[in-house]
């Protein structure tokens, strides 16, 4: 019985890993080095720490052994393993992305990017910024300009219960209404917000009113409250 061919990998912080050649070749980068005969000694990987490299190796091990069988059962198990594997802290996730990119491990890059995309899905900009520590460096005018530039993506539809009439409303206006503001912030970003207690006529009035409020706020004049707007904030009465 011949011994399995192994390669030696060295992380940025000096940790040594002995890995089967087939497992290491999940990384196209390492595969290239092996095929070019540069892998006799330890392969230095200055961009990957020991901790991350051990995770990448774990991933590659799991995915090499499963590449032989094509049954759906093992695909399900593999997916479950992936889900468990990728349940890591955010900074580890990003380190894995960078490592998968540098080492060119397609499956791992796909998995990590999909995970980040899933974190962005259906979140408001405020929530996304909070999650990823993104600093909002727009001035209010700049932010307004961006929202206007891509108005279609920031519109929210309000519709009444009968799906008869819908009103396309700019987000900042919709936020004038406390209820809707809460719905938006509670993640109701499906672009259509149903308002069960309000008929079209009232809704039309309310929106007109909100428009005036927003315009008034911009021109710094005294806003006047109308009955319709009070009704919206108290859903029982409308």
């Amino acid at each position, binding site marked *: 019985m011949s011994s399995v061919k192994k390669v030696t990998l060295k992380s940025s912080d000096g940790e040594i890993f002995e890995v089967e050649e087939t497992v290491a070749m999940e990384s196209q980068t390492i595969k290239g080095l092996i095929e070019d005969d540069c892998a006799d000694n330890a392969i230095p990987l200055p961009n990957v720490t020991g901790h991350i490299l051990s995770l990448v190796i774990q991933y590659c091990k799991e995915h090499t052994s499963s590449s032989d069988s094509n049954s759906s059962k093992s695909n399900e198990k593999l997916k479950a393993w992936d889900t468990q594997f990728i349940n890591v802290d*955010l*900074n580890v996730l*990003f380190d894995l*992305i*960078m490592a998968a*990119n540098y080492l060119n491990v397609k499956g791992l*890059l*796909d998995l990590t*990017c*999909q995970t*980040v*995309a*899933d974190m*962005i*899905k*259906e979140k408001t*900009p405020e929530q*996304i*910024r909070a999650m*990823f*520590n*993104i*600093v*909002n*460096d*727009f001035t209010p005018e*700049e*932010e307004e300009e*961006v*929202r206007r*530039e*891509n108005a*279609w*993506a*920031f519109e929210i*539809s309000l*519709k009444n219960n009968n*799906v008869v009439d*819908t009103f396309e409303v700019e987000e900042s206006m919709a936020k004038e209404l406390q209820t809707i503001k809460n719905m938006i912030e509670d993640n109701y970003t*499906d*672009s*259509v917000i149903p308002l069960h207690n309000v008929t079209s006529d009232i809704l039309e009035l309310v929106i007109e009113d909100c428009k005036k409020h927003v315009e008034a706020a911009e021109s710094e004049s005294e806003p006047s409250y109308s009955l319709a707007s009070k009704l919206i904030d108290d859903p029982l009465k409308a």
Partner: protein
Amino acid sequence: MELDEISNLPGHVVDQILSQLSIREAVRTSVLSSKWRYKWATLPNLVFDNECYSFSSLDQTVVKSKLVNIVDHVLLLHNGPIYKFKLSHRDLQGISDIDRWILHLSRHSIQEFILEIWKGQRYKMPSCLFSCQHLIHLELFNCLLKPPSTFKGFKSLKSLDLQHVTLGQAVFENLISSCPLLERLTLMNFDGFTYLNIEAPNLQFFDIGGVFNDISFENAFQLAVVSIGLYDKRQSHANSSNLLKFFVHLPHIRRLEIQSYFLKYLSIGFVPGKLPNPCFNLNYLSVRINFNDVDEVLTALCILRSSPNLQELEVLARPEEQAAVGTVINIKEDNNWSCHQLRLVKILGISGIKPELNFINLLLSTSPGLEKMTVKPATNNGGWELLKDLLRFRRASVQAEIIYMDP
């Protein structure tokens, strides 16, 4: 202060992340920070489908104008090459705006173009589509193709998927033969042409379902996976042997599906006991068969005898009109023939008639390596009789499991 790692990821990684979001959510990232304002604008893949925007209004004109507005908007703000463009919205009818979008794409090195017109008439593709020389994958649903006379083919096209399309006979032949790199061809529910003369030296995958008179593979020797469904049972009797003509040009065939009435087509003309050149590479066969038709049964047997390396077989019985009543097909046991590699067999939709039982009996007695045979009748009538017969059959394989499934 925690690091903002996501904003500093390499461009193609951000592209990959944003590609997993709907176009609407990707565009919404523009407001996150000044760095993010145009990250979405370099996305190489643009998909406009039912997820991109949920239209609250059911008014057709409103939906249409909104969709046009979104695509125009995105294309205008987009920056850089566009590799993939998919337009498939359930409310999309053939609107003339599509023409100018394709023109825009033709100027941006489009490689993958997918257009699905869910409603309305066949949409006539504009001539600018035919100047997209970087196309690698083209997928059209409910379209009409009439290329200009200057069209010399798609030199880079590897994959073509046409469903519910109209194109003329000459257009079809010219299209196939002028795409030298074509590897995958799917044709479903087409009209305008009835003769399929396939000249594609690199073709490996071929999937077709529709109405045609004749099919031949003049120059398609790489074909490995073939699935053919002939939806019409009227046959023309022009050839001396459809079966021989079909198989003579498929030496490398690995997977074959014979669906609808295609077996009937193959049974026309001379059917030998065995093909002159065995299908050495065929390891999967699925065939829809009318067990009441003697010719069809003999054709199926011919194929089986000519496939020494067949591993998986699926047989779908077509409960046809009870044609030749009383015709008993005497399948003689041929001691020269044995399906050594056959492991899995599925027999579905049978009714328990004699030809079916003979066939199953024959399979069981000639497959020493059989692991599992699944039998599923069409109805519960005569289920018991069928089971009793199955029980009696001798099996060449000691480990063969016969699984009877309720219909």
